[in-house]
């Protein structure tokens, strides 16, 4: 075992008897899904039945704590909605819930192999597309399945990769690395580590971390730090609990984040607040950046961002003065057509204040394993890789983006251009309910396909509408797996404790099918052997990792000074200039603006004033709720009861002017971008003063598992993404999910159906 890792000591093995029960220590990850992977103790009886799941007090990541979704694991695992066996359905019967027939795993695999190979022979492997949901621990295996089959068209069902990707790429364009807030999560001894410093300021930008738990950051690390003295600045269109506790809250109009960040830069430069020594030594492009920021005077920005100019100044001064300032940024920055410029604008604030690679600032996440951006790219022949859909339209897809572009694939399905698409493998994504946009168009496109496989723990609208074969997936207590973490990685394992019945894990399905398609590409007999191969770089076998986890890599700050950020070992950052590039040479090389800029959202009071007359409310979507992760958890009774229907949050004045009351069903109707089409979705009114009267906010991913399967579980009534067209900004990274327009009216008998 490699001794560079720091392991948490345990007085018990990872599996031990406790009276009449057995406890299995490990990590939790998908399904049910999230972006964390907390340490858990899974308690079973001696027959392998799940009794409960609780947080592992010895795990430094969550320190015994759990959110409600993991606490409800037993209800999710034992849900009557679970799929229990593989099924097939005649293509002519798509959408008919009564036409499913139980089949064996062998028959399912044989059918898939025959159908996919038929497509490959007649149209090429690229005609089979492989769709995933939000990454989680599916990405590695599904990407290897796609690429070893010979298809370059593996992709998330997300418009413009508009989640996390833009922040990652935005950071890379400026710094050659990615940066996350320093909450001590890289240390096994956490807040007690002597190297660590509590951030003086946490600038929470466009997310509600305590609810969202996104990107590998356990949201309540923010409250841990607040207890230790951190002060908050919150940029959010709603007054969240964190915003209510903040020193400065900027209630921005959705979509204006980049302008506000540039106005903050303007203040820092005008008032000489930025870290001049750091910028002098380690940044380049300050002159161009300053000239650009000069276009964003606080008073001007305040007017169209609907905030107070003095609050922009206060935020800029407070963040610039902090010795250790985290920017806890969220998906808001990704979900705009110009996402990369937005992310550049905010990332540059970290850079000009020297909050990079410093204690209590922003850190480069330690990487244990390098497989998260897809695994097995070497198995894809070069001539097949060249057929990937996306790079011809979007420059970024030529540069390190491993996946295909969803809008380009949808268009190819519809038009057979540049080549026909004939089949789809849809693994743990419910793209008619979530992630995907314009579900009506998506449904019609997918109906054209000759063969569709669905892989999921539950039936859902997408697979009920479209799948010809269904493969039932087991949940995390029922299988083993690797967890290493979004953000800062650590060595964790997911350890099987519960009998999975006739279901199989995502990775087992991918391994078994992969071996049949391409035995050389999958030279392992068991998933454990496959995991050991991935852990090879750590010097651990999977079994050793199970016994020893959690494990942490050694960590040091200020690596840019010691030459540890660059492959050539010289000081500086891993960019062509070796400096943080406030004027980005990489962006310029793609023909994109090298400086952060602000553009109005594609539809807005200012960019489409005519539309705004008909649709007089700004709509933002995707507000996170405690009980759900995207389209998941609606089948879990105790979770569902916490927030049982999709809501639209509106100010009391807005509700009064619309004549609607709390709890009432309304339609949110809005333009589908600038396509000229209009669409609508139902919501329940929730009246709250936390939002601007000109803005309304809603949660996403809604469908009714208890609803009529023939009506696709009401998804076309409930999916707010109906108001969004396929297509994204000029880089292909970033799409508008969060700054829309709508009008609102009551649901009445005469208009109650779509």
């Amino acid at each position, binding site marked *: 075992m490699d001794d560079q890792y720091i392991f948490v000591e345990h007085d018990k093995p990872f599996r031990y008897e406790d009276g009449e029960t057995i406890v299995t220590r490990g990590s939790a990850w998908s399904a049910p899904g999230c972006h964390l992977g907390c340490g858990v103790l899974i308690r079973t009886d001696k027959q392998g039945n799940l009794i*409960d799941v*609780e*947080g592992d*007090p010895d795990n430094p990541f969550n320190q*015994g*704590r*759990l*959110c*409600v979704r993991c*606490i*409800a694991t*037993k*209800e999710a695992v034992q849900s009557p909605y679970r799929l229990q066996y593989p099924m097939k359905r005649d293509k002519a019967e798509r959408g008919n819930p009564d036409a499913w027939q139980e089949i064996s795993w062998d028959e399912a695999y044989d059918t898939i192999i025959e159908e996919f190979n038929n497509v490959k022979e007649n149209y090429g492997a690229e005609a089979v597309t492989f769709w995933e949901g939000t990454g989680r621990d599916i990405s590695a295996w599904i990407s290897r399945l796609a690429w070893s089959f010979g298809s370059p068209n593996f992709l998330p069902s997300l418009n413009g990769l508009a989640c996390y990707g833009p922040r990652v790429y935005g950071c890379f364009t400026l710094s050659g690395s990615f940066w996350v807030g320093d909450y001590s999560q890289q240390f096994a001894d956490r807040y007690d580590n002597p190297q660590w410093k509590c951030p003086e300021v946490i600038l929470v930008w466009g997310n509600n971390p*305590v*609810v969202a738990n996104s990107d590998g950051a356990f*949201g*309540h690390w923010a*409250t*841990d730090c*607040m*207890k230790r003295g951190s002060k908050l600045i919150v940029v959010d269109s709603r*007054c969240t*609990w964190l*915003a*209510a*506790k903040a020193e400065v*809250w900027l209630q921005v109009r959705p979509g204006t984040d980049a302008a506000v960040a540039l106005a903050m830069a303007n203040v820092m430069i005008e008032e000489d607040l930025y870290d001049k020594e750091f910028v002098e030594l380690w940044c380049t492009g300050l002159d161009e950046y300053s000239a650009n920021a000069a276009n964003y005077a606080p008073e001007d920005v305040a007017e169209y961002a609907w905030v107070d100019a003095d609050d922009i100044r206060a935020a800029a001064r407070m963040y610039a003065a902090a010795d250790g300032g985290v920017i806890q940024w969220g998906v808001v920055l990704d979900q705009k057509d110009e996402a990369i410029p937005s992310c550049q604008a905010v990332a540059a604030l970290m850079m000009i204040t020297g909050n990079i690679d410093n204690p209590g600032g922003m850190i480069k996440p330690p990487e244990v394993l390098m497989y998260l951006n897809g695994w097995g790219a070497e198995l894809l022949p070069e001539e097949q890789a060249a057929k990937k859909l996306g790079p011809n339209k979007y420059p970024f897809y030529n540069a390190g983006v491993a996946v295909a572009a969803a809008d380009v694939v949808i268009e190819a399905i519809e038009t057979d251009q540049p080549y026909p698409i004939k089949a789809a493998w849809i693994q743990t994504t419910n793209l008619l309910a979530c992630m995907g946009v314009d579900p009506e168009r998506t449904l019609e496109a997918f109906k054209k396909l000759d063969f569709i496989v669905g892989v999921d723990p539950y039936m859902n609208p997408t697979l009920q509408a479209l799948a010809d074969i269904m493969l039932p997936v087991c949940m995390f207590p029922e299988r083993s797996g690797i967890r290493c973490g979004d953000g800062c990685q650590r060595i964790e394992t997911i350890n099987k404790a519960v009998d999975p019945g006739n279901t199989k894990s995502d990775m087992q399905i991918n391994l078994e099918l992969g071996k049949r398609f391409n035995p050389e590409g999958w030279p392992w007999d068991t998933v454990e052997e496959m995991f050991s191969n991935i852990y090879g770089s750590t010097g651990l076998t999977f079994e050793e990792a199970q016994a020893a986890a959690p494990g942490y890599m050694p960590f040091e700050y200020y690596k840019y000074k010691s030459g540890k950020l660059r492959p050539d070992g010289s000081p500086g950052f891993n960019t062509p200039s070796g400096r943080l590039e406030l004027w980005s040479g990489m962006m310029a090389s793609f023909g994109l603006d090298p400086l952060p800029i602000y553009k109005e959202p594609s539809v807005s009071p200012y960019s489409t004033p005519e539309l705004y007359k008909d649709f007089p409310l700004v709509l933002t979507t995707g507000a996170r709720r*405690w*009980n759900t992760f995207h389209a998941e958890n609606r089948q879990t*009774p*105790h*979770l569902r*009861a*916490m927030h049982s229907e999709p809501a639209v949050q509106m100010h009391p004045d807005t509700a009064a002017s619309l004549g609607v009351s709390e709890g009432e069903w309304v339609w949110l109707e809005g333009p589908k971008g600038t396509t000229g089409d209009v669409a609508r979705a139902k919501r329940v009114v929730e009246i*709250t*003063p*936390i939002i601007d009267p000109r803005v309304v906010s809603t949660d996403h991913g809604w469908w009714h598992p208890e609803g009529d399967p023939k009506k696709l579980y009401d998804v076309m009534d409930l999916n707010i993404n109906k108001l969004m067209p396929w297509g994204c900004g000029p880089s292909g990274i970033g799409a508008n999910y969060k700054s829309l327009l709508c009008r609102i009216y009551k649901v009445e008998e005469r208009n109650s159906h779509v």
Partner: protein
Amino acid sequence: MSNRAMLVDYEWCTGCHSCELSCQMKNNLPVGQFGIKITEIGPWQYDDKKWQYTYVPMITDQCNMCADRIEAGKMPLCVQHCQSGCIEIGDVEQLKLKMTNKSKQLLIQP
């Protein structure tokens, strides 16, 4: 009367519901019944830029303070899972002493 009580540092409760659900799962409580329940006080704005926005967990008659877990040397499940670490169960006399150290606390004796 038991000497056990609950101390809530309501400055930090974010309303995450982990206490509620932990208790429901452990004690097989149906939807709608609670051994501990969060109350929301706010949000409302006052004084230009100030907000009242507080959550307070309150135990019910169905709370048994996880006597079995305490006996086994573990924390009550609501305490262990509380994401902001704002609740504590212990001897009422000792908790009274902690009351004097910090503002925004609530001592609940069932």
